[in-house]
């Protein structure tokens, strides 16, 4: 393709096709004129806003994509139901965990896609990505016991594995599998991933104080009286609201 030669790696053909398809869907007409204009717009967009070049071969294996889509839909509905049953049963009291989960891939766009897929399901999302250590911090609701935490952890690892299997290249999928298995084994041994039972009030207060100290932010003290000049109302309201909700 001549475009490719002129702009080197900057204009990926698959991205181009995707943009043209979106353009045609937007117009809702499928004729040659629309396609030509779409091609023009896509070219302009790609030249003006260049993306980092990569080998984006998601259409390489369409069957795996279909299976991934099925997996995501099942997970979406399943976890939506689970989340609501849990919320309804506990009448709005939440019990959640933020867990460190190892990342199974080394490729940026695969990590990003996997994070998006994990975040799509209700009750779970990736709070922070520590790229250099290869760790995600995943927030999950409905975690009350160590068993729940382990189940949620395994769920995230499994989902990641499916995404890597669908998006990553040939060498990556088996590597991800072995890493996933290792992660599960590690999880059984590591003391960090074993949450305490729902802690008593005193312990919570202590950890809260500790966290506040670490953060050492002015105007966040628990008394609610001596807030910073910026927003005394805000802080008081927060505390009141919390009490109300219990």
């Amino acid at each position, binding site marked *: 393709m001549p475009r490719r030669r002129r702009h080197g790696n900057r204009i990926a053909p698959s991205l181009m096709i995707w943009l043209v398809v979106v353009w045609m869907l937007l117009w809702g007409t499928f004729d040659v004129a629309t396609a030509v204009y779409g091609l023009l717009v896509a070219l302009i967009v790609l030249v003006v806003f260049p993306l980092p070049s990569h080998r984006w071969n998601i259409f390489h294996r369409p069957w795996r994509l279909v299976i991934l889509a099925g997996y995501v839909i099942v997970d979406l509905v399943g976890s939506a139901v689970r989340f609501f049953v849990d*919320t309804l049963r506990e009448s709005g009291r939440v*019990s959640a*965990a933020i867990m460190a989960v190892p990342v199974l891939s080394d490729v940026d766009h695969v990590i990003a896609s996997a994070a998006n897929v994990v975040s*799509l399901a209700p009750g779970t999302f990736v709070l922070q990505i520590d790229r250099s250590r290869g760790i995600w911090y995943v927030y999950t609701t409905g975690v009350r016991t160590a068993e729940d935490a382990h189940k949620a952890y395994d769920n995230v690892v499994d989902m990641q594995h499916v995404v890597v299997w669908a998006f990553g290249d040939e060498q990556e999928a088996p590597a991800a599998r072995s890493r996933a298995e290792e992660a599960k084994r590690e999880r059984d041994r590591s003391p960090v*991933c074993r949450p305490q039972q729902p802690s008593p009030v005193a312990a919570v207060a202590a*950890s809260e104080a500790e966290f506040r100290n670490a953060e050492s*932010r002015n105007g966040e003290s628990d008394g609610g009286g001596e807030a910073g000049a910026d927003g005394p109302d805000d802080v008081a309201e927060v505390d009141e609201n919390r009490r109300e909700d219990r």
Partner: protein
Amino acid sequence: MSVRDWVSAVGLISGALFCVIGAWGMVRLPDTLSRLQAATKPQTLGLLLILAGTAVRLEPHFAVGLVLAGLFQVITAPALSQLFGRAAYRTGGVDRSTLVVDELAQRLRSGRE
């Protein structure tokens, strides 16, 4: 009612139900992070169902636009919740008494010492 009407009715009503449950959760839940869960995800699912319910009643030519809208929603929702969650966590929007384990805080603490 034809089969198409039934499919449409199921999609519309279940989608609206998801929206209501999500909104209810948003009023009921105690902190920003859990409200985020109740807000964005069920809304996405609800919107998808409603769009599906609408799409079967339109000509295929229009339905394609709805598919696009649904696709955008699926792509943007996780990005939004990630950004939102990070902002909420950093600005103290998380009720720490709801957390049974917080490895990010442990990590942040150990990084500071």
